[in-house]
């Protein structure tokens, strides 16, 4: 099913809401109150688990939800390179650009 622009528009509006709520509510709420400790401690572990899940999906889950890394060799090698580059440079732009360059070069060589 191909989506049309009206459906895309409503997707954006709904996305705006779910993107805004987590940004606005705590900011408005905690301007005057203290943040509960358990919430902070739990939120500490959410980003790393979420991003890892997303990377796993990108690298070794196919669009029909089966496990496969057969044609993902350039991405897997580049992922390791990006990991090292991000660790040493701490720069988002360098990590992304080097990642794109290395996946392009490795795909070209293989």
């Amino acid at each position, binding site marked *: 099913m191909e989506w049309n622009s009206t459906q895309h528009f409503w997707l954006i509006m709904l996305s705006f809401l*779910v993107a805004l709520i987590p940004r606005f509510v705590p900011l408005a709420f905690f*301007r005057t109150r203290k943040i509960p400790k358990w919430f902070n401690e*739990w939120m500490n572990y959410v980003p790393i688990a979420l991003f890892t899940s997303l990377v796993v999906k*990108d690298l070794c889950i196919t669009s029909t939800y089966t496990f496969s890394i057969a044609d993902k060799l350039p991405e897997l090698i*580049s992922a390791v390179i990006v990991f090292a580059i991000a660790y040493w440079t701490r720069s988002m732009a360098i990590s992304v650009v080097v990642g794109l360059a290395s996946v392009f070069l490795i795909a070209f060589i293989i």
Partner: protein
Amino acid sequence: MTKEVNDPSTPNWMKNLKVSMPLNLSYIPIGLACGILLHAAGFNTYLTALVSIMIFSGGAQFLIASMLVIEAPLLSIVLMLFFLELRYAFLGSSLSKYLQGQSNRFTFLFAASLNDENYAINYLKFSTDKKWTPSDALQVEHYSLLFWTVSNIIGSFIGSALHINLTIVHFALTALFIYMIVMQLKSLLKLFVMVITVGFAIFFMLLIKSTLGLVASTLLASFIGYSIESYIRKRNPKYRKNRLLRLFKNPAGTPMDESDEDDK
């Protein structure tokens, strides 16, 4: 350059532009890649501009693009986005102390254009520069929003003009997520959470056969991390010296961020 920034005759908007410039420049390649992918997902240029302004999050926009390509249902996309954006609750709460006394309208504007990267700049400025005001912070957010949106629009044009290998451009998102993982890796326990998440993510996605598997693995892995940390804190009064919780040294020597701050 530092001297110029400190020059009192420099207008305020110029000072704030200089503060935000490194971030603005780094948005250009990522914004281009994002615009190309959104075009491939069927978004026209107006919608690409709209989504960049209204959502203003690289991760979220890449996610929308990739989920549209695999024809995920609307509910699944919105739910995934909610979980992806939930981390902003944490960023927002840690900035809230600097926004005390601001109106609801200002808070709304500030929240709407808050994201990971301008948060990092503003948090640093608020905690180190006493003259840094909430309106300076809002201006930095708006500069980065401008660069991001323009890059997305140009990316959308590039996508319609050239035929581009999308599997390669798509890796920009994976690289962005890997970068964010690395920025989060601050203790052995975080590393452990990362490793168990790999197993959970594969298991749940093959089991549930949908992106809800991502939600399941995220909730389970983060809960395990949180439980282990609480257990160590309860059992051991010197938990800060515990091998699992001790913070790593930062190789690039960047300033401490929000989660280090909490431990004070």
